[in-house]
């Protein structure tokens, strides 16, 4: 399937920035296996652009920061995940950019620094 056609199909799958199930099913019914695979991949990528993935060590404190996060990304849907490995802080993924502001990341950086400089 040509790249431009795929782009048009993905664009046609959305109404008001929301995935339209009816349209998606309609398009999928007209595609062969290979085309369908490319279509699903393209939809996944597009979905990533519409969502912000936020990982927090615990969801208990989420309500206090919900407003701030929502105001930072007004056009996007927030997807909250719990990741206790972060220990403290937050990890935000906006499409293919990841912003690491967690204790886990800091500790990893310290470990890397030590491994690189104190190998003896």
């Amino acid at each position, binding site marked *: 399937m040509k*790249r431009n056609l795929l782009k048009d199909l993905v664009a046609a799958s959305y109404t008001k920035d929301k995935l339209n199930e009816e349209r998606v099913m309609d398009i999928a019914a007209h595609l062969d296996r290979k085309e369908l695979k490319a279509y699903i*991949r393209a939809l996944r*990528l597009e979905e*990533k652009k519409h969502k912000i993935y936020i990982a927090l060590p615990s969801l208990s404190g989420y309500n206090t920061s919900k407003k701030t996060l929502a105001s930072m990304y007004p056009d996007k849907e927030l997807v909250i995940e719990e990741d206790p490995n972060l220990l403290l802080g937050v990890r935000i*993924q906006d*499409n*293919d*950019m*990841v*912003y*690491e*502001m967690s204790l886990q*990341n*800091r500790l990893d*950086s*310290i470990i890397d*620094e030590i491994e*690189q*400089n104190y*190998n*003896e």
Partner: protein
Amino acid sequence: MNSDDILKKLEKNLMHFDTSAKTANVGTVVSITDNIVVATGLSKALMGEEVSFEDGTLGLILNLDEDSVSIVLLGKPKDITEGDTVKTTGKILQVMASEELLGRIVNPVGLPLDGKAAVKKGTPMPLERIAAGVIDRQPVDTALKTGIKSIDALFPIGRGQRELIIGDRGLGKTAIAIDTIINQKEINDRAAKDKTGKIKRVLCVYVAIGQKQSTVAQVVEKLRETGALDYTIIVAANAADQVSLQYLAPYAGVAIAEYFMEKGEDVLIVYDDLTKHAWAYRQISLVLKRPAGREAYPGDIFYVHSRLLERAVRLNENNGGGSITALPVIETQADDISAYIPTNVISITDGQIFLKSDLFNSGIRPAIDVGLSVSRVGGAAQTGAMKSVSGRIKLELAQYKELAVFAQFGSDLDAATLSQLERGKRLTEVLKQPQYSPLSEANEILSIWAVTNGFADDVPVDQILRFEKEYHEFVARTDKTLIETLLSGAKIKEETTESLKKVTTAFKKVFTA
């Protein structure tokens, strides 16, 4: 180091420790075939940027498409599957270079292959780098001695030159390169003793590309045995290694060489061999679905080699005066130097040493074809002493070759022709040299001078090498001043010629054929 120093060092390091939030550009693995990963995302990735996978494997971005990137893996993938995350590192590929690398065997990403600890401290040197510009350079003016008579006399190599070694397999291409590395030991020893600073040592980098591990092990052993490993670094990407590593090996080698060059050192780098390097790049390009050109090589194969060999340079004094001399090796098929890769590299380099199979089979070793070999810039670097004796050889050899062909048709030859033929035979014989026995410049001059001046005319051809060996020993024993004069490189004056005549006549009296 006492406890205060340790704490101070830690505090100093703490000052440089970056505690800011980290940003990363991520992507998702779409497919993995033949060690090439296609990933979506990574919209901020740069061409040639290093990326890391979830399992710790590193990769290098080689293609940037509209909505995907192609990544070549730099190690054996442990566990990369479709859907995995890949992250940019913000770094272009680099290798850690330091003095600690001398005597070590590493792979193109700097990991040790000799069982010792990894070299983690040092200066990170980028694998890809623009070569020094015209303003930063100076002409080649210092000789790089190979210790091989025929090369030093006929096709001299200068520090900063690129001299190609080309020939079929098994003709001694690697042997010439290894002999050259071994020969630097004598020069380095003299440089260490020299208080005037006129003699500069030469460090060596041997890059093994796509070779058998046993071959590399033999080279390492030979270098260790001769004491040459102390000033040599071996960068190896063997036949069983990832093709990406084979492609990167020469760039890693030259990056390490540049580290030393920037410190004002003279470095010799051997690329053994660029044919296999071209194969590796062809393989990567075909898997990346880049358009194939002549012999299925990609369109930029010339640039791949030219940008590598342009990094061989002689810097001017303002830039430290260091140099990188490159000896690339190319393997031909059936002596055909008009194939694609050989012609490319011939046109890039400053000359070539062409080894021919029929010469090798007729016992002439090193099997250098005098007619097809050339050194375009090395002449300026040849010492005055060597110039004085080598000027006549090429002409005499060319005349001998012509006469030898002519003499095949008849037996009635005049005395002058016969004597020229006999001299030619002895000249050819004296240019033979066994492997791993490079000669000092003084001994090279002695051999060539004696033969070109007719002192070996009455020595049977099959005794020439014995004559040469005993002659060197005799002069070393009886006239050390002459050796010193010849080693100084100064042009041979009348009094030196007299000393040469005197000592050679004295030797002839004691030499029995």
